């Protein structure tokens, strides 16, 4: 027999309130758009470990759609964006499935976690829906795990390594040098470590030590003591997301002065480290100081809308949406097969850089310029955003864009 006194009016109201709140916040997004719109799904982590980058991705994709629709849309139809937090690989897969089956999206754009990217790609492959991956960098996903219906904006891990690698070779920090590497202990980090090691060994370097760091570790002091004792020629970061912020802050706190380089990087994590806590050489797919009219216009529009400059993940999702809109207009279709055919024929896109890019036909990886930026000293900083010295594009103007891309031998991909 339940104790009825327990179920007071107040408790009942409290329960009803909680249910009401859930109704508002917990239910999935439902689109009421007209049939004459083109629905595009956007999935990316908006909370948790990668939420920092996801926020930039969402803001940028909103801006891109706003601009596309203001300019008349795609083939005269407006884009209707359906956005969701991908949370984790299982949820990402469920939400991708729902976007395809229920919302009938023309394609899915986004994602940052390589693990979630893999599950979304499986849904895309099964349902023959296009998935444009914007931020999952692992060579595994972009190579062995490649799919006919998946294309990749931004870069594979090996492209980041080759980009920074060039700067390190120029600084004589590879041949005969001892590296101390710190690697994020999950799929992305392991993949990055593998390609970094390949580069280091091919160029005559060796490890002083090679340490895995749990993704939820916040205190690096014990590892900093190890670095201090090992006296390496270079400290290499294969860390991810906010791990980099913690590492930078504490490396600076301990006053260590060994040169630092990173093979994976996002500007937001360095902006969050604070004045005097950023140093070393880092790779970027795009940055807000690129001196082209396209990049300047993007930076101005983003800053006007969000009161802060965009960072690299913002560029990834912004440019993915712009590429899709352009491709649909050119192919006069929203069908995945037609768009892929268009890309495989070598369609070129303005990437807001010095030269246009394209999707490589055999793995659908975007071929584009990258950058190896060097941190400014605290005394050289003019504001909180311009924290590094912009680098010229890599590959250089006279080189093929594929010069830094993974080769077929390095990153086998077969659509069969």
């Amino acid at each position, binding site marked *: 027999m339940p104790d009825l006194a327990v179920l007071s009016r107040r408790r009942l109201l409290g329960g009803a309130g909680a249910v009401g709140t859930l109704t508002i916040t917990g239910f999935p997004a439902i689109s009421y758009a007209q049939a004459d719109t083109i629905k595009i799904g956007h999935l990316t982590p908006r909370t948790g470990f990668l939420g920092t980058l996801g926020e930039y991705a969402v803001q940028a994709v909103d801006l891109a759609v706003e601009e596309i629709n203001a300019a008349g849309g795609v083939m005269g139809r407006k884009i209707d964006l359906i956005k969701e937090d991908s949370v984790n690989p299982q949820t990402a897969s469920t939400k991708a499935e729902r976007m395809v089956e229920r919302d009938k999206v023309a394609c899915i754009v986004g994602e940052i976690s390589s693990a979630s990217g893999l599950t979304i790609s499986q849904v895309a492959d099964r349902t023959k829906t296009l998935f444009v991956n914007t931020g999952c960098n692992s060579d595994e996903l972009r190579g062995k795990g490649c799919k006919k219906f998946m294309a990749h904006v931004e870069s594979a891990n090996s492209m980041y390594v080759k980009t920074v690698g060039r700067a390190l070779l120029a600084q004589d920090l590879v041949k005969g040098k001892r590296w101390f590497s710190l690697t994020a202990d999950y799929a992305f980090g392991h993949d990055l470590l593998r390609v970094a090691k390949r580069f280091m060994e091919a160029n005559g370097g060796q490890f002083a030590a090679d340490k895995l760091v749990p993704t939820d570790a916040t205190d690096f002091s*014990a590892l900093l003591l190890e670095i201090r004792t090992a006296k390496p020629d270079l400290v290499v970061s294969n860390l991810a997301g906010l791990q980099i912020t913690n590492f930078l802050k504490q490396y600076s706190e301990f006053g260590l002065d060994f040169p630092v380089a990173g093979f994976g990087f996002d500007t937001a994590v360095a902006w969050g480290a604070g004045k005097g806590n950023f140093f070393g050489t880092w790779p970027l797919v795009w940055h807000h100081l690129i001196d082209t009219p396209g990049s300047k216009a993007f930076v101005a529009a983003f800053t006007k809308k969000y009161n802060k400059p965009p960072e690299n993940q913002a560029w990834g999702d912004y440019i993915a949406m712009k590429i899709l809109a352009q491709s649909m207009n050119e192919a006069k279709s929203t069908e995945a097969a037609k768009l892929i055919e268009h890309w495989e024929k070598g369609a070129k896109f303005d990437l807001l850089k010095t030269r246009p890019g394209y999707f490589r036909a055999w793995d659908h990886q975007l071929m584009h310029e990258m950058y190896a930026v060097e941190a400014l000293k605290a005394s050289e900083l003019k504001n909180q955003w311009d924290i590094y010295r912009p680098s010229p594009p890599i590959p250089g103007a006279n080189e093929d864009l594929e010069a830094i891309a993974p080769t077929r031998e390095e990153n086998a991909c077969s659509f069969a």
Partner: protein
Amino acid sequence: MQTVLFLQHVLNGLLAGTYYLLIALGLSLIFSLGGIVNLAHGAFYAIGAYCTVVLSPSIGFGGSIVAAPALVGILGVMIERTLFRRFYKADPSLSLILTFGLAMVAEQLLRMIFGAAPLSFSIPSELRGQLFVGTFIYPYYRVLVLAVAAACVGGLWFLLQRTAFGRVVRAGVQSPDMVGALGISLEPYMAAVAFLGVGLAGLAGVMLAPIFSIHPAMGNDIITAAFVVVVIGGLGSFWGVVVAALIVGLVKGLVVAFGFPQFSEAAMYLLMLLVLLIRPRGLFGERIQRFE
């Protein structure tokens, strides 16, 4: 050389334990008196860090060390008066759900107000630098964190063991009904304990803001470790928490020293498992009737 490095790891581990100590002390205090399993404790830690970023430009880091914990403590009292007090006599699982919800609301509010990106904050220039003792190295800032944690332990011990206030609180932990029968209302004490406990989380947020990344979910980074410390130390035990925090820091440091940094987080859970298997009450856990 290896022995020196090993000793450094031992000392550094003990030092790192003080971070958990600052968080775990407040967590233990609130649980001991009210039986509230405060999953929102990490959120108060995050709010402390955000307050530091907001307040420091106007009142300096020194001012923030006082003002931010006080503000977070007042927030704690408001939540205690409006929410926690309704759950003191309820099934602990209800307060668990309440504080879990509170943690999510707080995290989302921080995200809405400040954005998801980490906020920029550094060690004040006057506190930068390192103390070298032989080949040992201690950043000045970590020495300050150690001093603040030691002051908190000393101050709290004095308050709980040597004052009339502490006697009532300790009696309230053991037997709230008897305290009531003696004509003492526990309500103001509950509010004061919420101020102290939540304020300590805020203080931890201030002290760690210069060396850890400041982001909306930063509470999650440290709250689990704090729970592990409280469980290992034993519920209701002041010194249990202190000793457990140092042991957790030490074990994590030693795992790195032995060359397995990837297991440094897992090591504390293994330690908790071992302690619970051998001594389910925790190292110094007292037998508290209403928790049995």
